């Protein structure tokens, strides 16, 4: 899609090799392998229950898995200074006494014990980060009073302030209206290009991401296919992934993935979690 993957192909910032996870005897991820190069914008696409959050937990080291996960060529450590993370669930009471700048500051040094001593350097760094995500206007507002889109921007600032090489975002668009979602996507594309940070962003709908992503990792029934969007989002590749026929339709540059023929639809009705959902053109 837009932009070529960066040419300096030295060490991938993230490399998964045959990663498998079973929870309570049920396979969630089966032999998932893919790599992300520095500065690359990757979409992790899959329907609800496809294993996107589990995959994030594996990358973060919170979920034991077989196979190997390499960060910047090395096995991950307990603390991952290389990874910034924006979780899907974030709910804070409007009365919670935490300002935007406090949350961003915690991104800098929350792993340290003791109280942060106020310093000019710390304040300047926080102000720069707030500026980068256009959050200066509500820097001193309570985080719980912000809108969903504003909170996403603050969480992105929280994740980016420690200068990670890889940013993970779990369904950042799920709870946003379309304009706020587009704003967040545009912001991410700008910041990551400026700072050469690789991004792995999960979504159940790929269309809002198509204009910005370099590569795609498509997750279905615990298996993954990766490559450029044109390589992955094809009838042959996705049918093999789902284990039954799906059609990929292109409509004005947008993509529609539709479950197979009518007979197969009825057939797979009791396997709702493995069936591709119909992506709705926005």
């Amino acid at each position, binding site marked *: 899609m837009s932009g070529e993957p960066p040419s300096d192909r030295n060490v991938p910032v993230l490399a998964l090799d045959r990663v498998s996870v079973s929870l309570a005897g049920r396979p969630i991820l089966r032999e998932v392998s893919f790599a992300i190069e520095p500065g690359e914008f990757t979409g992790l696409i899959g329907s609800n229950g496809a294993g996107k959050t589990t995959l994030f937990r594996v990358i*973060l*080291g*919170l979920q034991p898995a077989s196979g190997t996960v390499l960060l910047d060529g090395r096995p991950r*450590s*307990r*603390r*991952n200074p290389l*990874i910034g*993370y924006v*979780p899907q*669930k*974030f709910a*804070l*009471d*409007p*009365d*919670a*006494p*935490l300002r935007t700048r*406090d*949350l961003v500051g*915690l991104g800098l*040094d*929350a*792993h*340290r*014990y*003791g*109280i*942060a001593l106020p310093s000019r350097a710390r304040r300047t760094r926080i102000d720069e980060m707030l500026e980068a995500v256009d959050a200066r*206007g*509500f820097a*001193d*507002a*309570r*985080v719980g*009073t*912000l*809108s969903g889109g*504003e909170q996403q921007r603050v*969480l992105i600032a*929280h994740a980016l302030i420690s200068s990670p090489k890889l940013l993970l975002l779990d369904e950042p668009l799920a709870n946003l209206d379309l304009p706020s979602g587009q704003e967040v996507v545009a912001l991410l594309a700008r910041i990551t290009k400026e700072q050469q940070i690789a991004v792995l962003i999960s979504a159940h709908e790929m269309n809002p991401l198509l204009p910005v992503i370099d590569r795609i990792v498509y997750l279905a029934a615990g298996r993954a296919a990766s490559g450029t969007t044109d390589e992955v989002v094809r009838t042959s590749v996705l049918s093999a992934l789902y284990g039954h026929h799906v059609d990929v339709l292109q409509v004005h540059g947008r993509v529609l993935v539709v479950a197979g023929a009518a007979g197969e639809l009825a057939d797979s009705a009791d396997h709702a979690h493995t069936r591709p959902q119909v992506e709705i053109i926005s």
Partner: protein
Amino acid sequence: MSPTLAAIFAPGFFTSAPVAIAASVGAVAAIVGGVVGVFTVIRGQSFAGEALGDIGTTGGSGAFLLGAGALWGFGVAAVAAVSVMELIGIQRPRGRDLATGIVLGAGLGLAALFLYLDTVYHNTTGATFTIIFGSLFAITSSSIPLVLAFSAVALGLIAALYRPLLLSSISPELAAARGIPVRLVGAGYLLALAVAVALAAFTIGTILRSAGRGWPVSFFVVTLIFAGYLLAGLLRPRRRAPITSLPDPTAAPAQS
């Protein structure tokens, strides 16, 4: 002393030693409670705080039975209670309340047993009244070093854990992703809460002890707390909403 005050308080009330002790211990407990309480609210663990106060009765009456200091009783009971809550080990907020409820039930049962045994073994006339009106838990100035030590433990724990505790209170997922030992930090916070509540429960005893002539002690406690609450509401800074967003609708009504 003004006539109004004289009608309520006995002459020399404010200069008497028990009142001075109650006031100073109360001030220390208020500071500790204020610091620890912020996290209790963010973490949604108010029920645990409430339960620990009730479980203080178990400790206080148990300590009276053994002839030990009341503050030790409060402290040991509260720390034991949070340890059991942690051992039950449910991390989801609603599950945590379940663990708290189980421990609270056991604590109240034990408290009833201890209070009964107190009246049996300490052959004091009117022991029940002693307990009900709090004079059981009266303290002397010799307890003040212990009060300060307890406060230092609670405040020290919060200060040491401050940043990881704040992040794991806001979002356990964000904290875990950064490699913060969320469970351990939570246990450390519960310990601080236990010590803070022990102090607070102890303070209630001293306040009850120092109450004025003839008036029911609960009157003073309730009136003072309510007056403080009203004052805090009036003095609350009216934060202006940032220009870029609408005024916060939840901030407008005064709390019930």
